[in-house]
């Protein structure tokens, strides 16, 4: 019998072996660290303005930080630079950052992710997570869902795996010392949905 192995087959085998090694390592208690690629990890929010129930989309912020997988649990410390946030209207952005978020004094939001069980080396979909979100120095518990996939690194990346995924959670503005954001009569509703797309590379 003759086996034909093409490039796809080699990549698949590499992925399986890589994941198996990683799974073994993490099961044995070795920590595997993933560093967030900030440039590929946008953070967005979707808020509702009243009256009119207009959708206010904030974008431009990037996620920084690292996650660690150990014994089948994923945990991490992350931060978001709030200064690049934009909502599409310059004056509204100015008010958001100067009057409410006060990014001059508090340029970053921080998220500490509590350990969350993930399928070894395989990631998963809509995995519930909890954590602590800190805005303007005030920390509150937060919960949401995260989806993550692991893939072998590109050729020439020393075989480091890539973790890609999306995390979503909601926050209450009233839980933080922000005030009630209002711009020329349009007031932002208390609940804000946050979505984070992340790409992280295994660091060795």
């Amino acid at each position, binding site marked *: 019998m003759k086996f034909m192995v093409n490039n796809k087959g080699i990549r698949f085998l590499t992925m399986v072996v890589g994941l198996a090694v990683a799974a073994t390592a993490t099961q044995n208690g070795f920590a595997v660290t993933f560093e967030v690629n900030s440039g590929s990890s946008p953070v967005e929010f*979707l808020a*509702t*303005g*009243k*009256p*009119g*129930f*207009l*959708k*206010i*989309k904030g974008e431009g912020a990037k996620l920084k930080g690292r996650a660690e997988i150990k014994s089948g649990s994923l945990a991490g410390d992350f931060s978001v630079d709030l200064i690049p946030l934009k909502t*599409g*209207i*310059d*004056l509204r952005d100015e008010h958001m950052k100067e009057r409410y978020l006060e990014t001059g004094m508090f340029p970053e939001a921080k998220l500490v992710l509590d350990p969350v069980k993930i399928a070894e080396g395989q990631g998963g979909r809509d995995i519930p997570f909890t954590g602590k979100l800190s805005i303007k120095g005030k920390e509150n518990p937060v919960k949401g869902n995260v989806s993550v996939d692991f893939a072998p690194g590109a050729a020439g990346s020393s075989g480091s795996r890539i973790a890609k995924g999306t995390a979503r959670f909601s926050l209450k503005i009233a839980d933080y010392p922000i005030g009630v954001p209002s*711009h*020329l*009569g*349009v007031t932002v509703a208390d609940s804000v949905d946050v979505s984070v797309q992340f790409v992280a590379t295994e660091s060795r």
Partner: protein
Amino acid sequence: MNSAATSVSLKIFLAVSFAGMPGFCSTAFAFPEFVRHGYFSCTSCHVSPGGGGILTDYGRSYSAEKLSARSSKGEEEPLHGALGGEPGQGVRRWLLVGGNMRQVQTVSENRSARDGRWIPMQRDLELCVTGGPVIGCVTGGITKHGMREPDGKSHYGVRKASVQIQAGESWLVRAGRFSPRFGVMVPDHNAWIQSLSGRGIDDERDQLEMTFSSEKFEASAALDHGHSDKPEVAKGFVANLMTPLLDTMRVGASYRLQESEASAIKTAGVFAAAGIDEKTFVLAEIDQQSIEAKVNLSAPSDGASRVASYFKTGRELSQGVIAYAVQQIDLKEGGPTTARRDMYGMGLQLFPRPHFEVDGFVGKVLSRSDFAYVNTAWLLFHDYL
């Protein structure tokens, strides 16, 4: 067809086509296409829940930042800044001022005749006084009704007046004289759906309207008491329901009943406004109207029905420059005649600075009954105060 007859038909076409000019409807200068920026409802930018008319402070800011090609600080303020003050401060805490100056040059031609008109459509001032959840508004001024006025003179008067009360975040009650809410509420000058939905020339009506708004849907219903100065105007009710799909799309349905001693006119429609991306939009509406004679079952209009559809797509080429295309169909069936006409056209809408709009349109209208084309074009100049 001889030239005299053709000329007459051209004049009829003009009269019908421009009967719905925007100066006479409350939706003038409304922008349902701003759903592409996440604007589901009109009330962020307009006082009127149906859109159009006087702008809120937020709407003025938006016009400077997202609508106009260029603007300098404060240029968007009321009356070109003549009112002074800061938004929400001093007199502007309780007084909103606006208005519209609008004129249009139209040209229409067929194989044997050409007709051009300069129509001073609107010279209106609008005032709103606010006190807590209550807002009272009045619109009036000099309105020359152009082709509709036999004396051809300007007339002064109050066209719209209403009081609205906001009850909590979701409920709004409005009473007074204003245009019915129906469909996607396009402000387009030649939209044939306007005449079905009751938002054509002089179509303000005495109404009591209730609106419920939420993130899931917006519903409005109004009792239409006709027009106190025009006893011949039918009475009835109108209802409108719309819901957002995704973040940049809304769909809905409308129903309107007009009843008089002679007839009952029922109009139903479905509509959609969608942002394909932040720069591209689609507006669509299709309405069906049926007429039932009450007193004389052999009346020519009995059993007649009419279907009108409207489709517009456009793209913001750069801020303040919007290219668009329009297609619409008007089909009349039953009664004494069956007729269909189609319109195709394209236009360019410019917002060079806050307060100013220039809108140019060229198109063709095809009458299917005699396969005759009419070329039509118009250029609109608009200064919103």
